[in-house]
Structures are given as structure tokens and as C-alpha cells.
């Protein structure tokens, strides 16, 4: 078998490169003269890219160039996109912080609204709260408290660093005066 025409190899290479979707062998064959061996052409393209930073990969019923898998890690730039806690989660966390240890029922009573499991889950997932034993009442409900990760997140040395609740009431007017959403660090 003779080597494929370099011109055909170039054309197939360009087609696969420019296509938004994987290119099938039939599409390559349609681009080449009838007597050309599309399979051999494809193989020639593949060997051109063997060991390169970009490789020819079979995917989704066709062929596509992809970044060599071993490079992906080094090419990836990670951008930190910190997420915000939903308002309910933030309020629940605040209540746990100032009232700990506290049961779910107590949190609901303070907030005056039911507390959904997703909210507790979000706080648990962020390792901001932990179960801290049970309250000695019928049903033995779980008590919730904050974690060391909570202290780190809010830049506190210990829980004593939290402003007293009495101070908070004084500060209320100050806090209220602040425009909402200005929680820049």
C-alpha cells in the first residue's frame, strides 16, 4: 500500500480542525477524490499528531482533535469563584453561632420560620456547623454548634471574639445604616 497523498492528509487535518463536531470517516471520504483511501489518510493524520500536545481522538461517532490528556492538568487555570451562602443559611448560621448549642426547634423559634434540611446540609457541607450532643428533653433533639472552620472563615480566634449580643443590639442601628450587599472583605 502506498502512502496517502500529502495534500489529502492536509485537507483532512484542516477539516477535522475546523469542524465544530467530530468528523466521520465518511465526511472525510466525501472531501477526497473517489479513489483516495480515507482510512489511510486518517491514519496519516493520526500519526502526525502522535505524541504531540494535541491528539486525534475518536469521539461521538467521529474524529476530533483534543488536548493531550497529560497536559490538561497543567493547562487548566483555576479561578476561585467563592459562592455566597443563601440568606436563610447565613441567618441560621448566625443563630447557631450566638445561641450554641441550640436545637433545630430553637432555631425555628428564633427565626419564626421552619428550617429546611437543605439549609442545614449546606452548612454541614461547608463544615461550618457540627452536632454537639443532644438536649435532655423528650425526643433528645440534636444540638448544633459551630466548628473551627467557622472560626477560620470569619477570621475569629475563638467564639469569644464574636460581639456580645448586647453589643449587637446597640450596633443594630449602625448595621442597618450600611447599604445592603457591601460585605467586601
Amino acid at each position, binding site marked *: 500500500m502506498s502512502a496517502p497523498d500529502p495534500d489529502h492528509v492536509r485537507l483532512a487535518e484542516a477539516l477535522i*480542525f475546523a469542524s465544530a463536531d467530530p468528523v466521520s470517516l465518511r465526511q472525510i471520504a466525501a472531501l477526497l477524490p473517489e479513489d483516495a483511501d480515507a482510512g489511510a489518510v486518517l491514519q496519516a493524520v493520526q500519526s502526525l499528531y502522535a505524541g504531540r500536545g494535541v491528539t486525534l481522538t475518536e469521539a461521538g461517532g467521529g474524529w476530533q*482533535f483534543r488536548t493531550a490528556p497529560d497536559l490538561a492538568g497543567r493547562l487548566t*487555570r*483555576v479561578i476561585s469563584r467563592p459562592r455566597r451562602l443563601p440568606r436563610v443559611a447565613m*441567618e441560621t448560621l*448566625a443563630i447557631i453561632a450566638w445561641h450554641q448549642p441550640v436545637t433545630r426547634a430553637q432555631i425555628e423559634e428564633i427565626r419564626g*420560620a421552619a428550617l429546611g434540611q437543605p439549609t442545614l446540609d449546606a452548612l454541614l457541607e461547608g463544615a461550618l456547623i457540627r452536632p454537639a450532643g443532644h438536649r435532655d428533653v423528650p425526643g433528645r433533639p440534636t444540638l448544633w454548634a459551630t466548628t473551627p472552620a467557622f472560626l477560620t472563615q470569619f477570621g475569629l480566634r475563638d467564639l469569644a471574639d464574636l460581639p456580645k449580643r448586647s453589643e449587637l443590639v446597640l450596633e443594630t442601628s449602625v*448595621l442597618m445604616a450600611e447599604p445592603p450587599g457591601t460585605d467586601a472583605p
Partner: protein
Amino acid sequence: MAHGPERAPTGLTLALDGFDGPLDLLLDLARAQKIDLSRISVLSLVEQYLAVVEGALRVRLELAAEWLVMAAWLIWLKSRLLLPPETAEAEEGAQSAEALAARLAELETMRAAAAWLNARPALGIDVFPRGAPESHLAADRSRLRADLPGLLRAYVDGLRRARARVAYQPRQLSFWTVQDALARLTATLGTMPGWATLERFLPGALSGQERRAAVASTLIASLELARGGGVRLRQDAAFAPILLAAPEGEPG
């Protein structure tokens, strides 16, 4: 540069629509004269233009104003160019002819510039970028955007909202009901010697609305009681005090 066959100024039936304005036609005419625009004859250019416009006018009477404005200006230019040199008007004409040639040269240059751009392999038309680019950007959403002031605000806001959520309940008013009045009337009527005013049967320490309600309910109770002969009622004149007494024959 597409030059359709209709753009060749060969016949009098020439369609001026094929040109993008008078300057476009002038440039075409100038090109027919010479490749180098700095050496064209403005005078012969003027004559050609006027011939074309005249021919077009013969075919259809209405012609866009811009063609006629240019024609009028060119006639003026021609008159200046035909004057003997070294007169002030001839000098003016020469300057205008130069300016026209410069404008034509600039348009020609920009035509060439467009052609140059057109001849470049244009992205997405002649050459193609990667059809399926890969993004190597990854977002790390593990960190939390929250700080102490935010936590404080959440606490204060949460408490405030909880307080606001307590539903409004109007103060319960304890009105002296007819039942209350009936009970009090039957209980105290026997202890009253003779006639006594209605007010004496009211419960103590009432004021305003409560007192007026008690007066009304005690009156209704006494009327109810009087119907069964349980009490005697008397009023000596309109708006005079209403007097109550135990029925006759009972101990008074």
C-alpha cells in the same frame, strides 16, 4: 472589485444606478483614461461626465439630485478651465481641478485598500479557527464568600424579620354581655330595697366604651326579665333615670 457589465459607460442607456454616486462614476471614467490618476485630463473627464448625465436624462427625466449638483459644479469647473491661463478665475479652476483629482485619487486608494483587505485570507471565510475550542478554565467554588460583618447583619436581620413576622392581634375587649347582666340583675335585685337606678346594677370600675356597653346590656337584660315579670321598670320622663325594682309581693 466587482465591475458588472452595467457599469461600463459605453452607451447612452447607461444605468447610473450601477454607481455609488457621481464620484464613483467619475473615478470609473478617469480609470478609463489612465491608470495613473495624477495624469488624467480633468477637462475631458468633465465632458464625459456631462455626456453620460445628459444621456441618462434623455432616457428618464428624473435623476437623483446629487448627479445634477455634480453636473452643475462640473459645468462651472469647465468654464473656469477654458479661460485663458493666468487669470484669477483660471487659477481658481486649476485649484478645483486639482482638488477633484485628489479626491478621485483618495477614493481610488481606498478602493485599493478594500481590495487589499479582501485579498487577505479572512477568518471564518477563507481560513478557519478551531471548530471546537476547549476551555481549560476551571472554577473553584469550594470557598465561601462570607465575612463577619455579613454574619452580624444576617443575625440582626434574622431577628428583626422574626419579630416582624409575629402576627398583629388586636387587644381583647371584655364587654359586659347580656348574660352577665342577667346574672347580676337576678342576683342583686332582691338586695335592693324599692326602686333603684339602672346604674346601680352595673359592675364596678368601668369607663367609656365598656361602661356604655354595660349600660346597654343591663337595659336589655332588664327588659328581658321584665317580660317574664321578674322585674318592674319605671321611667318618670324622657331621659330621666331608669328605675328598677323587684316584682310586687316579693320581699323588698
